[in-house]
């Protein structure tokens, strides 16, 4: 695949992924390879399957068939696509930080407690080490003052930045973003994109499902355009946005411009 960092090791590989909900065939065989440091943006219209594709990577959706491999390790699957090794899946999930459209911070815990929950209670990291790391991350996303706040008392932008910090606090190998700005008021989108841009600039591996075309062009090293469960076109952002080949992509780009 035409990715930028061919020399660096493989981080995430999706091969011939199929997914059906009942009789509805959402993904009809899609593949993707992200090497370390790649930023892959998945774009496409609603119902194109882009969120489903992302959610299959950490098995929030069970694939119908195909292969998911993280850092060279294939996720063990039953023939029906469901994960067959729960322990392995939990370990792999801990290496993938996921950021949701609706933030999903745990409402009964403060921001700091949200950040250290998995490091302390699942990954058995010493509490003071986790708190130290969490505070640094909160400072980085501009929420140093908010560590004792409950999510319900924060704006959407603040919640999403805290959710990004929570994912980073597990020290993941790669980050998955599922339309991270779609639930935000327009004036709050910028602060979240800025944080994501910072992560891309420091060379983090990320897969990003987004509607923000300008942003995708700016941060992505590789863009995938999904249509009706198939990859219609893919390539470097300048090529994809600057000189789209397929009529569908041309039309899509015109409609979101």
């Amino acid at each position, binding site marked *: 695949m035409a990715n930028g960092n061919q020399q660096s090791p493989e981080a995430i590989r999706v091969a011939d992924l199929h997914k059906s909900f009942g009789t509805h065939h959402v993904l009809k065989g899609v593949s993707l390879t992200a090497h370390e440091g790649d930023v892959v943006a998945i774009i496409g219209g609603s119902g194109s399957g882009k969120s489903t594709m992302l959610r299959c990577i950490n098995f929030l959706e069970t694939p119908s068939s195909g292969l998911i491999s993280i850092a060279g390790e294939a996720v063990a699957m039953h023939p029906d696509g469901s994960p067959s090794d729960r322990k392995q899946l939990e370990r792999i999930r801990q290496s993938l930080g996921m950021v949701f459209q609706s933030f*999903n911070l745990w409402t*009964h815990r403060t921001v700091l407690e949200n950040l250290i929950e998995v490091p302390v209670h699942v990954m058995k990291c010493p509490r003071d080490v986790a708190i130290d790391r969490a505070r640094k991350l909160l400072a980085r996303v501009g929420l140093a003052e908010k560590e004792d706040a409950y999510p319900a008392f924060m704006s959407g932008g603040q919640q999403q930045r805290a959710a990004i910090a929570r994912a980073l606090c597990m020290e993941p190998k790669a980050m998955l973003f599922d339309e991270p700005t779609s639930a935000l008021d327009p004036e709050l989108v910028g602060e979240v994109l800025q944080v994501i841009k910072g992560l891309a600039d420091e060379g983090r591996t990320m897969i990003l499902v987004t509607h923000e075309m300008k942003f995708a062009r700016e941060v992505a090293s590789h863009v995938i355009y999904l249509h009706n469960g198939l990859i219609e076109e893919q390539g470097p952002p300048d090529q994809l946005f600057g000189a789209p080949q397929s009529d569908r992509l041309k039309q899509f780009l015109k409609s979101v411009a």
Partner: protein
Amino acid sequence: MQANPTPSQTVSAGPAPVQGFWATRRIVLALIAVALVGWSVTSLNWSWLANPKYQALLLQGAWNTTWILVVTMVLGMLLAIPLGLAQAAGPWWLAAPARAFCGLIRGTPLLLQLWLLYYGLGSLFPSIPWIRESDLWPILRQAWPYAVLALTLSVAGYEGEVMRGAFKGVPHGQLEAARAMGMPRFTIFRRIWLPQALQRVLPTLGGETVLTLKATPLVATITVVDIYAVSSRIRQDTFVVYEPLLLLAVVYMAIAGVIVLLFRWLENRVPQRTA
């Protein structure tokens, strides 16, 4: 209405009369309460309260009512959590019996359940030799185990239904975030799902605890000496009809008040935004 209202006028002129009205009303109500208490202290017959035997009985009764309530609420909730979980997320072979149990408990009077257990089990056990010879027999021979069992099952039945709704009401995204971060299933339950379900259910649970308190007098019908049984005993002994009932009302109100305060404190531990 006002021709030229300045801001200060509108603020002070509006609510002041209402506040005055409420203040007056509150004073009047307080005076009536004081008068009632004064009247009942001076003109009613409280002489039996001076009897040390009744004092000891009243203390014992209040203690029995309190511990039976606390123990049955705790045990009942411990049963209600799996009952609710089985109905909200369990496979059918767990959900169906849980639903049947809750339906059975909620569909029949507590008094009937209490008597069925006490007269049913209570007369079945003595006929089984190994039970009569076991170390538990001195306990099983008494009435309170049946009272605790019946109330516990009742709490479990009602709260199991409440917990079912609470578990289902926790937004899916909260659990999905935990799964995405690689939390094992039981950790998700213990650290995310259960605390959030319990937090949602606290206001209901406070009310249910008060209701359970007021169901405890039924245990007097199987010879458990709770505060209600003590007041009945005093009424029979002394032929003072009304005053022991008044005292009983005060005791229940005091316990109910403590329950309300306790649950308010629990609810306020995690600040909620109502907007």
